[in-house]
């Protein structure tokens, strides 16, 4: 729908309302980032789609435009929820160059784009997939298992709200601060945010194992005239010991690069066997 906004050659957006429209367009187009996902260049087509109107506007000449298109055919990959700042910075730098910033040549713009994509993927993945979503999943799964429809609803709405905030805020921040954004977020800070998210994620995973995983053993043994349940003895030493062991086994298999798919099938079979013989259950 914004295709035909590229009417003027190298038209620089000066007016705030134009800039706001640009930000909104980048944000909305970002939804399709993974639309062209492929195993060779990942999100390159999606990112091209985001930049297309800007490129069309700045490069009316077909030759220039083809060059611009090709520049954005290269490998691109980041966490889709945090693509905003990258697109914002890239678009803003293109504007700067159109205004005459000669040191912003193609390589400069590209290196900023590539320089942002990996750290933001790291932050996004660890924060969203490693921390926020597991916490929400654990709480909402608990509700759902109790038959409470609030489970999926809260899960969906909370994630949606977070995504909207990240996309809208991220694009605007990236666009407005331009390259300074890059400097503001030093590697050390990126690292710290990731570490912080990892700490919370690890602690929460520990809590998940202790509360959500119900692996017990029905074994008993007889000592003198008493019958003692092994599980009771284990609970005295360390509650949730079996869940912890099971998780650590899975974890170490996956760390040793056993495919999750095989681990999943293996666990299914092991569970069936141990359950059949009454060792666990």
């Amino acid at each position, binding site marked *: 729908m914004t295709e035909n906004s590229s009417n003027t050659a190298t038209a620089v957006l000066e007016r705030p309302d134009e800039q706001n429209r640009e930000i909104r367009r980048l944000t909305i187009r970002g939804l399709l980032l993974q639309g062209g996902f492929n195993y060779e260049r990942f999100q390159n087509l999606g990112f091209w789609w985001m930049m297309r109107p800007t490129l069309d506007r700045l490069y009316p000449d077909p030759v220039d435009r083809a060059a611009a298109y090709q520049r954005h055919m290269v490998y691109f990959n980041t966490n889709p929820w945090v693509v905003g700042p990258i697109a914002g910075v890239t678009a803003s730098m293109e504007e700067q160059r159109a205004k005459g910033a000669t040191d912003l040549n193609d390589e400069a713009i590209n290196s900023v784009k590539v320089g942002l994509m990996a750290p933001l993927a790291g932050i996004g993945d660890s924060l969203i997939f490693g921390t926020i979503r597991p916490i929400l999943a654990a709480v909402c799964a608990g509700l759902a298992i109790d038959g409470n429809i609030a489970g999926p609803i809260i899960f969906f709405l909370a994630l949606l709200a977070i995504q909207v905030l990240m996309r809208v805020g991220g694009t605007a921040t990236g666009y407005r601060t331009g390259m300074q954004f890059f400097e503001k977020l030093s590697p050390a800070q990126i690292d710290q945010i990731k570490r912080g998210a990892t700490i919370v994620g690890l602690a929460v995973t*520990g809590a998940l194992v202790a509360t959500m995983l119900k692996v017990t053993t029905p074994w008993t043994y007889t000592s003198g005239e008493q019958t003692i349940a092994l599980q009771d003895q284990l609970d005295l030493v360390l509650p949730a010991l079996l869940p912890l062991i099971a998780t650590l086994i899975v974890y170490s298999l*996956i760390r040793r690069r056993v495919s999750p798919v095989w681990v999943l099938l293996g666990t299914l079979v092991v569970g069936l066997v141990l359950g059949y013989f009454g060792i666990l259950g």
Partner: protein
Amino acid sequence: MTLWQAFLIALVVALAYLARRILGDPQLERPIILGPAVGLIAGDLETGLIVGGTLELIFIGAATFGGTAPPNVAIGAAVGTALAISAGQGAETALVAAVPAAVLGTFCELFAKTVCSFLVHRADAAAAQARGRTILGIIWIGNAIHFLAYFVPTFLVLQFGANALEGVLNALSDDVQNALNTSAALLPAVGFGILLSVLYNKALFPVFFAGFAVAAFTDFTVIGVAIIATALVVTILRNRTPQTPSSPQSSALI
């Protein structure tokens, strides 16, 4: 399971996955969403909720980092829920169907993503001629391929797997029932193990045991641990010595 229901469920699964590609990855393919959705279609929301919640825990750590393909939660969840409902069984038996279906789905997903790798070369050619419309077309061809890679196997499994599963389930002894229950209880360990490897960081790993111990020995819930961990992390980060660029080694501190 009518043809119509199977069609609808397969459609929902394929659309949920498509949302991941074209609607900003809203996580609609997660079992906690698909379970109730399938339940609604199959006429048993309650079972859909329970199966969805159970599967969500099993796949809690399953996420696509850098495009990796973990067990396919969407197809697994839909097939598990649908077959459990049509067989009139609970969440435990749903897993017998869900896990193999998720594995099957992974292969379909890998297939689709690989096919798209070839398409990207045609996009290169189009870009060299600034033919944006062609590139856009290639994007949507990829989306269509993915749609089918989800829709077709889900539909087929639902159509032809239901009767087979029902027969198997009816023949189950008590021991086998117990085996199913145990497997269902054990499977979330896979989710947590994957999550753990996702979060792997040697220096921070002991925090996992701290979180475990707090929840294991007290009434702390997952939310409680999340609150306290977040509170401590934010406090530490906010009170960190400001980093001077000349001393990068200090960044190792937490």
